[in-house]
């Protein structure tokens, strides 16, 4: 019964979305305030009904109702409760429902928080959001219905064991909050084009939403990377796999969007480009969610895909991406160009950031889609691997990172590059010292890694140059310096932390790529082996029984200079319901570095194959992303305070609402 109610709720949400697709937009066109205002209640209704529908599906999972096809295919009564809950979105249908639920959440958020938006803009935004809601609700209802029934079965087929992990509870919701968050900036861009007018107030509105989406997307990608790292037992944290690229593409263009919207907000320039970026970013999000799902691209970690959905998905993509770009082509010339600036200026630096990020996104997109196009044209199957991406992406990132510390030190309109360089001397010196230090410790080996380390350190130190300049402890003394730091706007801190995070991630990537060691060995109980500077002793096998799996593991004692520093317990699990084995790696963190153990096969004679990685500074990769997200959050909270202040005293350049 509840399952049927869930289905009905979905239909009601769809009907409301169809109404909201037309009424507010029409109201904005003829100037009917009632029609425009109707979107507020319908958006709330769509959110509530989609939410009810999602809860109904979750309830079916918690009850292990195997008369629901979706539950039967992806759940098992022995599964721990947490995985029954997360299993709701561990499959195509459920994850689509979560996607739409988040879309509805953001639409409702505009209704609740958009009180002081210009009426027309707001009605158009809500209309565009309803177009998306209606389309994807229809997609779920008619091609991916999670509530389909069957004659009940005694036991379910279990959730894919790889997904039976806490990662599934966090990663997809975060990633979707990021992907779908950009639907708001997209809706704002389309609404601006429909109305044919755009100003700095538009950017003030769009930027926080882009920031929220970006914060979640950054955290979601990092979380996914760490999940793949510990769960798959391959010891890698990024594979340039189509699914990963799909999440990385909107991140790159979203990062560009954040920076171009800043120029638009402060200087009323780059309007057309910002609107285009807003469209492209969400288009890439759609591509990310759906192209991989459609089965057009095969990837190592997609859900089993159904090619019949592929065409529908491609059609939806074509309509949204093609339609919005066509609208852009027709209406963009109506938007006026903004203020002038010299190439060497804050704006200029942000434009350079945009050029490099967009080009990088284009090369990643090329590498991701090239196999599809190549096969369509020649019929031959190829794969584009990591070497392609490393060769194209990294050379584009190096100038970006070298130039990055300069950006915040340049003034708007016209900057002083020599002055900025003087303030960065310290960062350069620290970077070169780091390089010399690394060279001294690693004698021999390539010069490339130490140079890259110098660049990462340059960015990490350089990120704080603006704060250092504001405080100028040396001339002003500690107390004045601290007082000045306290008075510095939060946005300066936000920039410093976000940029510092990029440097931290880069440092982790460089160090682990250049200096990790891998030891593969066969080890019998009682034997010892040296790996990554540690000594390991095999202390025998232990069998365990989990709720829905059996596991066998090897106890290992880890010694450093004769002292026990850790006990490792890598295991292999076997899930009988799916007849599927998985590896559970054992990971030990020492400072920022990790020792990573993965178990292989048992060999005749009692030995087990073992793969041991020493991963120096690997955790910096994810800490860096956390710091970036923190920077984004700082910026969000900082602007709330600033806007509240602004609202209190009317500013001369405030744009009157129309």
């Amino acid at each position: 019964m509840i399952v049927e109610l869930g289905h009905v709720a979905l239909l009601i949400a769809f009907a409301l979305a169809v109404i909201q697709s037309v009424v507010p937009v029409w109201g904005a066109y003829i100037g009917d305030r009632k029609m425009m205002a109707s979107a507020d209640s319908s958006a709330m209704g769509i959110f509530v009904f989609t939410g009810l529908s999602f809860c109904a599906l979750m309830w079916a999972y918690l009850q292990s109702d195997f008369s629901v096809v979706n539950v039967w295919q992806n759940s098992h009564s022995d599964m721990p409760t947490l995985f029954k809950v997360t299993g709701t979105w561990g499959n195509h249908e459920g994850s689509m429902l979560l996607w739409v639920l988040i879309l509805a959440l953001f639409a409702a958020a505009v209704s609740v928080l958009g009180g002081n938006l210009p009426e027309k803009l707001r009605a158009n935004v809500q209309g565009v959001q309803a177009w998306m809601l209606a389309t994807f609700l229809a997609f779920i209802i008619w091609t991916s219905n999670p509530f389909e029934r069957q004659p009940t079965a005694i036991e379910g087929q279990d959730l894919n064991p790889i997904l039976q992990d806490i990662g599934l509870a966090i990663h997809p919701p975060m990633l979707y909050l990021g992907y779908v968050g950009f639907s708001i900036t997209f809706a704002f861009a389309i609404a601006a084009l429909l109305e044919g007018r755009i100003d700095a107030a538009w950017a003030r509105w769009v930027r926080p939403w882009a920031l929220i989406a970006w914060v979640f997307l950054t955290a979601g990608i990092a979380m996914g990377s760490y999940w793949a790292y510990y769960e798959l037992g391959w010891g890698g944290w990024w594979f340039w796999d189509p699914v990963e690229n799909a999440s990385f593409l909107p991140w790159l263009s979203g990062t560009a969007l954040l920076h171009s919207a800043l120029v638009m907000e402060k200087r009323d320039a780059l309007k057309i480009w910002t609107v285009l970026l807003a469209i492209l970013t969400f288009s890439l999000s759609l591509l990310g969610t759906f192209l991989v799902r459609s089965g057009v691209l095969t990837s190592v970690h997609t859900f089993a895909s159904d090619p019949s959905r592929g065409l529908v998905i491609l059609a939806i993509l074509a309509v949204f991406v093609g339609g919005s770009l066509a609208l852009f082509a027709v209406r963009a010339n109506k938007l006026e160009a903004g203020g002038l600036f010299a190439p060497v200026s804050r704006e200029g630096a942000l434009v350079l950031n945009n050029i490099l990020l967009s080009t990088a996104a284009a090369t990643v997109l090329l590498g991701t889609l090239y196999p599809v196009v190549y096969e369509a044209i020649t019929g031959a199957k190829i794969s584009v691997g990591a070497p392609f991406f490393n060769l194209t992406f990294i050379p584009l990132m190096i100038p970006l990172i070298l130039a990055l510390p300069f950006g915040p030190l340049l003034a708007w309109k016209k900057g002083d590059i020599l002055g900025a360089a003087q303030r960065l001397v310290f960062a350069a010196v620290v970077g070169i010292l780091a390089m010399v230090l690394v060279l001294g410790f690693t004698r021999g080996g390539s010069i490339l890694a130490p140079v890259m380390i110098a660049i990462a350190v340059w960015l990490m130190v350089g990120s704080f140059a603006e704060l250092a300049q504001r405080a100028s402890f040396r001339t002003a003394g500690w107390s004045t310096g601290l007082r000045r730091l306290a008075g510095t706007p939060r946005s300066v801190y936000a920039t410093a932390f976000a940029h510092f995070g990029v440097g931290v991630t880069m440092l982790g990537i460089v160090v682990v790529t250049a200096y990790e060691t891998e030891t593969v060995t066969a080890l019998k109980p009682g034997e010892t082996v040296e790996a990554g500077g540690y000594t390991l002793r095999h202390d025998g096998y232990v069998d365990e029984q989990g709720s829905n799996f059996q596991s066998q593991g090897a106890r290992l004692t880890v010694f450093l200079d004769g002292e026990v520093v850790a006990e490792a317990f890598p295991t292999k699990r076997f899930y009988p319901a799916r007849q599927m084995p998985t590896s559970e790696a054992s990971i030990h963190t020492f400072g920022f570095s990790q020792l990573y153990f993965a178990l292989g096969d048992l060999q005749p004679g009692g030995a087990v194959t073992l793969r041991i990685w020493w991963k120096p500074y690997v955790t910096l990769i994810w800490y860096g992303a956390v710091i970036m997200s923190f920077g984004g959050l700082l910026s969000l909270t900082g602007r709330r305070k600033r806007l509240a202040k602004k609202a209190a005293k009317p500013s001369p350049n405030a744009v009157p609402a129309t």
Partner: protein
Amino acid sequence: MTRRTNRLIWIGVIGIVLAGAVGLSMFALREGISFALSPSELKAASVGPKQKVRLFGLVEEGSVNRGNGLDVSFVLTDTDETIKVSYTNILPDLFREGQGIITEGVLGADGTFMADTVLAKHDENYMPEGMAEKLKEKGVWKEAAK
């Protein structure tokens, strides 16, 4: 500075970045891609001794042979042709006889494929791309139990 020189500078910068990216991409597409072939296709193709290719197929039943330490060899088939694959490392969890897998490596002079990577998908119903169609044509494809 006039709007015109300003614009020229930006066009120059964009031009340099784009030209660099296009050049790098063209170079990388020559170096960084590998062809994915079935055993029949690999035998028919002329592949250089150092050229990396991806070989996909089914692991033939009874062909997995574990040697010293981590050495392992097995036979990949597309039901027409077979190729022996040698590999020295830990096989992925889902590696099984009868399973569709992808390997990456080079073809040795003696006709053995020296793999440095073996991939098996996380999905137990996984078939390498193109394999399913081929098996369906031959009527040996078993529709995965749903």
